[in-house]
């Protein structure tokens, strides 16, 4: 028997052991979506560089929507900081051993790249702005006339998307004190989950204003610029089907990674096995298996498969479920991770 009594730091009563609340799961979720959207947009931009119709959805609206989503994530991140007025200190240094440090620099570059990517079709996507700032149309034409530049921008999007997608997982992964996070699967899982949530988000976005005419004003136009297709209405079927097909792949890989994650933890040290117990009978079991795996992966996987086979009509339900599951994954990992701790080797026998 091993009994510990302490005047503080009892994990059941000491709030300092639970350091991250709702803000970090929200940021990880939104950051993951933006990362996925950058990768998907990058692939679409490669097709754009090859001469595909520039009115296509992905490369035009995705950076704008990503830009707005990233603002939501950054707001959550700022709300989490306890010493908010000192946030600038992040950009006075680059700490190579701290994923949070280089992640912060990646975020800064991501903002710039999203803006430049949005410029490719911004005046067309948001006519209100295009009419008032004629220079935007010239920038847009200049970019479109240079396939090599668009190709380079596409690759920058893809590389930055991968970096943004994995850095949060590496950040948690480096914390030796939290065994649930000590798995190299985590960055890959976050990346694939981000890709799947991104496909779902883009699918959902195409359905918000299903047809033209788009709102032309300042606010309505801005909103439409983020979510509405410029090309044929409704969007070409292959575009939607491609998103659904990609999402099926992402969800299947995600399922595999979750399996490897659990097996990896169970077959590792006592601390890691104890961490796995948090989702295998512990307090996070229902959210993990019910929310993340069943509602977030299995149900949308089956629904989308049936949709592609024309057995049921296309709806936004799978996309909504995938997004809910993506958030649940971040929520479980952040909360259960903080609840996991190193098991004293000397206390085992």
């Amino acid at each position, binding site marked *: *028997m091993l009994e510990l009594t302490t005047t503080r730091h009892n994990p059941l009563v000491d709030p300092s052991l639970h350091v991250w609340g709702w803000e970090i799961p929200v940021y990880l979720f939104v950051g993951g979506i933006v990362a996925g959207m950058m990768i998907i947009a990058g692939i679409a931009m490669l097709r754009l560089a090859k001469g595909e119709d520039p009115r296509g959805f992905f490369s035009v609206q995705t950076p704008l929507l990503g830009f707005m989503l990233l603002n939501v994530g950054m707001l959550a991140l700022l709300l*989490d900081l306890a010493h908010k007025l000192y946030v600038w200190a992040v950009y006075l240094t680059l700490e190579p051993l701290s994923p949070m440090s280089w992640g912060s620099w990646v975020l800064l570059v991501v903002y710039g790249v999203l803006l430049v990517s949005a410029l490719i079709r911004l005046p067309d996507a948001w006519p209100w702005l295009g009419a008032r700032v004629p220079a935007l149309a010239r920038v847009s034409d200049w970019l479109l006339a240079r396939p090599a530049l668009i190709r380079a921008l596409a690759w920058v999007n893809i590389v930055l998307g991968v970096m943004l997608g994995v850095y949060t997982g590496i950040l948690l992964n480096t914390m030796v004190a939290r065994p649930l996070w000590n798995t190299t699967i985590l960055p890959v899982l976050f990346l694939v989950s981000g890709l799947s949530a991104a496909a779902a988000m883009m699918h959902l976005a195409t359905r918000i204003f299903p047809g033209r005419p788009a709102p032309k004003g300042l606010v309505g136009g801005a909103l439409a610029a983020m979510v509405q297709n410029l090309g044929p209405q409704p969007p070409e079927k292959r575009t939607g089907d491609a998103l659904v097909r990609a999402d099926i792949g992402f969800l299947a890989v995600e399922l595999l990674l979750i399996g490897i994650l659990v097996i990896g933890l169970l077959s590792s040290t006592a601390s890691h096995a104890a961490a796995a117990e948090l989702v295998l009978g512990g307090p996070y079991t229902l959210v993990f298996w019910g929310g993340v795996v069943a509602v977030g992966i299995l149900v949308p996987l089956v629904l989308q498969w049936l949709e592609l086979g024309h057995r049921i009509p296309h709806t936004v339900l799978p996309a909504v479920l995938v997004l809910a599951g993506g958030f649940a994954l971040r929520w479980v990992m952040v909360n259960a991770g903080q609840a996991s701790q*190193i098991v004293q080797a000397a206390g085992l026998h």
Partner: protein
Amino acid sequence: MARLGMVIDTRKCVGCMDCVVACQTENDVPHGYCRDWITTEVRGTFPNLTMEIRSERCNHCDNPPCVYCCPTGASHVEPLGKTVQVTSNRCIGCKACLAACPYGARFVNPKGYADKCTFCLHRVKEGKDPACVSVCPTHCMHFGDLDDPKSAVSVLLATRTWHTLLPEAGTRPRVFYLT
């Protein structure tokens, strides 16, 4: 350059918490928080029980995860005594160091920055022991340079049996407990 460490004799410690109060007073620790605390560990099966009372705090690890994860360099290894310190006006309050510490040694000061034991560096500079060491009524705590083989702490570690907390974390803590 010194490598400061602490050696605590668990055979003498009675868990009076004088060290806790001394630290709170010396360092003006906000009400409800503490930089050191007492842990009582009971092992065995009745009637064969052993008990160890420990005064615990930041271990000023040789391999400090809280320093590596810090995005601003606020958490750093101070050249003086190679102790782990926090520069409060560089700390953004991201709490990564709280999550990274296996000992739960850190907390967020109500002013917003990460806070923890400093080994009373301000006293060390004046040639004094940390507050907790200086007040201990059983003289169970010792403080000094671990790199100096003649220091009291080095002699104790060379002549007595000891353990550190969670050595399996690989952090190489510098608070040692004599058994």
